[in-house]
């Protein structure tokens, strides 16, 4: 199974890991880390938005968060997905 990563575990950053998923399985998001208790909803929304905007339909995404703001989270997801699908989009 192909996976790719972007980000770090520095403060105010996050480590995003994405893996290929079989067609039709949809988008699966896992969130853990420091902001998860109070920002899960916002983080899920941001992750879903970025993935949809990249035209990806089936993917597994895991976020290990260390206090990333939305703008950082979005960038890390975008980078991880591009690495997974070989960039170019």
């Amino acid at each position, binding site marked *: 199974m192909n996976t790719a990563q972007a980000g770090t575990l520095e*403060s*105010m950053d996050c480590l995003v890991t994405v893996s290929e998923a079989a067609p039709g399985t949809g988008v699966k998001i896992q969130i853990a880390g*420091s*902001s998860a*208790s*109070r*920002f*899960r*909803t*916002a983080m899920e929304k941001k992750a879903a938005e970025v993935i949809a905007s990249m035209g990806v339909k089936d993917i597994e995404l895991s976020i290990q*968060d*260390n*206090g*990333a*703001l*939305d703008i950082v989270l979005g960038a890390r997801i975008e980078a991880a997905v591009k690495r997974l699908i070989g960039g170019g989009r």
Partner: protein
Amino acid sequence: MAKNLLGREIPDFIEGYGKTKLFQGAFALKPEGYRAGGKIRCVNSTCTDKRVSDIKAAIAASGLKSGMTVSFHHHLRNGDYIVNMVIDACAEMGIKNLTLFPTALFGVHKKLIEHIKNGVITRIMGSVNGPIGQLVSEGGMEVPVVLRSHGGRPRAVAAGDVHIDVAFIAAPTADKYGNICGTQGKSACGSLGYAFTDAQYADFVVAITDNLQPYPAAPISMSQLNVDIVVEVPSIGDPAGIVSGTTKVTRDPLRLLIAKYASELIEASPYFKEGISFQTGAGGIPLAVTAFMKEAMIKKGIKGSFGLGGITGYFVELLKEGLVERLMDVQSFDLEAVRSIGENPKHIEISADWYANPWNSGAAVNMLDVVILGATEVDVDFNANVNTEADGALLHGTGGHQDTAAGAKLTIIAQPLLRGRIPCVTDRVYSVTTPGEVVDAIVTEYGITINPKRKDLLDACSAVKGLPVVSMDELVSRAHKMSGPTDPVETEDRIIGVVEWRDGTVIDVVRQLKKK
């Protein structure tokens, strides 16, 4: 269920705590009646040596039984061996159902979890941190934890809210008749400030030492008058955990900027003049504020009267350089502070009662001009929370937060607007520790936010060119914008923590976290 002055819902009666008194304002409640006291003792010349062979003998002699209250002080910090040693011995002796009344607990005390689970400890009155805090937050104790400030604790003892059956005092030096001091010996910790009230009011006092000196030991900080038994053990603590090395000023540019703004606020205030007194603690930002203030004091040629509270090497430096005349020390944080309090008569050991108790004839905090504090969050009404983390877990003690805020003429909370993604300024704090009526300003990297009730400070700051003044509305909307919307903390109804204001009224309660 009734609402206190801050709109917090407080039940009339809390199981395991009792009837509640509602918080009605920082200075509203006035005491009545007389102080409580410990048992009267009589020791004649038939006893000229108070030593017993070991901890178990001391416990047996103290008359400690299941269901009683035992107290400890935290000057050995994360190096402390005493709490675990005593509770382990109680467990082995079959004593159960104890109320633990520490001035604070540290990571080293996580061993107590087994004794909470096996019923040796059934109640904690005092701060719970780390793993014990997590356990309590998730409902791991039957009885709620009671949080009191450094001043609220001696008040509760003197007023009879809490009766100490046996106090265990960690004594870096002692003699066989119970004269104690904290500044000498291999486990020297400096001030013994928090232990004084316990020694005065407990029915029985056990001193535990690893440095026994011939009678009479000198210097003496706590005397034989209140100590019933002395136990010698190989070691009372790990020196590496008792004192830290030299505390350093932060080098993080963001925190330095915040410290600079805070220092500028102090300089702009009417309190920045000859004889200024201040408390800044040991945190990175407050220490940096002291560094900036020092520069400003030298530049303007003014000298301070005293530094208060937990004392660091940085304060010792100010004393040596004549930039403050005295240090009043309730807890010596580092090696320099320990050395200084042992050598320099201008570096004074004070008790927690003297430091911060609202119900005596005047605590040291009343004489304070400026205090720099932190908080996990502050709300639009300037209420501050230091007890719970963003996820709602009860993880921090109150310390001197309430007392210094109530006493100081200028109370500043200085910290970054966000910690990670979590905003430090919010519409409504999850739990209140210190009411907004005694908080004068919040300082963040975006500038200085003044409590509107302090129009004098607002005017003073506006008169200084280039000083960034940010309104609370602006600050909170900036925090919202950066962090995004938060999910609520999900809790059960059950109360696991009672936060007392320093006068013993309930300022807030903390509820059990819902299982995830």
